[in-house]
């Protein structure tokens, strides 16, 4: 899918600009906010699409996220992490909240959930991650259970108890796999830098 618009991984060297821009947004700079939108909206919207599925609702989530970014830029602390992480953490939480609100009823039927997973959830997280070479390679270092646990939580918005039900594993196992899976991913990504 090389060259397809919007499916490119934003180069990491763009991150420094985002940190600086967010500092300007914190001081009320509307132009900097536009630049932040231009820099980060594809990631935010892409993630929202992935988690909530419905394009119109993904737009709503994207709008909520950027309003948060505008309002809370004053609270962003560059010493604690990158702007990109901060924005995508907000985006993921917003997307997950949206999907949990609207799918709360459906989620009570675990069979429906299982059907949904098996029918329209090929491992496209992994496929799309191939755009991001390092992420792809590193996902390959995870065990199947680590990968499934991380994927179902992050891209489907399931809680770890829901993931435990889906994968038919004990709760402590799943929460541990989420943690050691992310740690392995982190260590692998660091090793690639």
């Amino acid at each position, binding site marked *: 899918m090389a060259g397809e618009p919007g499916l490119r991984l934003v180069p990491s060297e763009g991150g420094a600009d985002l940190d600086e821009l967010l500092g300007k947004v914190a001081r009320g700079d509307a132009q900097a906010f536009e630049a932040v939108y231009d820099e980060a909206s594809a990631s935010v919207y892409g993630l929202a699409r992935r988690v909530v599925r419905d394009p119109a609702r993904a737009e709503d989530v994207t709008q909520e996220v950027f309003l948060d970014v505008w309002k*809370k830029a*004053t609270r962003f602390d560059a010493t604690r992490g990158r702007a990109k*992480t901060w924005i*995508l953490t907000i985006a993921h939480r917003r997307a997950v909240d949206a999907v949990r609100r609207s799918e709360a009823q459906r989620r009570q039927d675990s069979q429906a959930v299982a059907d949904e997973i098996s029918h329209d959830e090929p491992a496209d997280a992994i496929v799309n991650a191939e755009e991001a070479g390092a992420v792809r390679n590193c996902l390959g270092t995870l065990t199947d259970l680590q990968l499934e646990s991380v994927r179902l939580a992050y891209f489907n918005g*399931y*809680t770890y108890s829901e993931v435990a039900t889906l994968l038919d594993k004990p709760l*402590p196992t799943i929460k541990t796999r989420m943690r050691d899976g992310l740690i392995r991913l982190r260590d692998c990504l660091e090793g690639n830098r």
Partner: protein
Amino acid sequence: MNTELHTLSGAYALDALGQEEVEAFRTHLEQCQACRIEVAELQATAAELAASETATPPAALRARVLAAASREPQLPPEVRWISTARARRWMPRLLTAAAAVVVIVLAAVFGIGHLIGGEQPTMSAAASRVFHAGDAQTSTAHTSNGGVVTVAVSRQNGKMAVETDQLPSLGSAQTYQLWTVRAGTATSAGVVSDLSSGAAMPLPAAGTTVAITIEPAGGSRQPTTRPIVLIHPRQI
């Protein structure tokens, strides 16, 4: 470190905890620096997963977002106490001991808080005594109006002092006012009559947050504007 809670860091970074667990885990985070560092790293890792999911949003969304933002005020900054070169001037020995501080957001207090007692305590230029005290702990914070305040706490003196000479000057119609905020109640700690002389006040009780607002000249009985800085000094 609470081992059972600690193992939730991965699920937390993936937003995979239920609401009650999120709150329990956040409480745990406030007390566990190692956990905060781990969570920050795992959140950064999770964000890398998101980076593989980009999709260009519809062009109309941009205008909608920008218009919506232009109607929304921004929140005042939270302040984390940091040691800086400015603090170094006062207390080189204690630099490494400068405590990390838990940030507490008390903006809501300023909508509902009420002032106990009507008098405005007199500010003192004796601030430097606090800064020079042998046990002084000093921290510097940036304010939302582009200034810097340095606060010193001395248990020996039983005082807290604020250095205000790096705050932007206000016209004659306005003044900086200090508040202590505790249990949802804001209490005036005095107005700053002279930026160059700083201010000293009795050491606030443990768990007190200190705030500075811009008020009409003479000060207000309760905060009428959003604080330009909110600080929760752990060393109090």
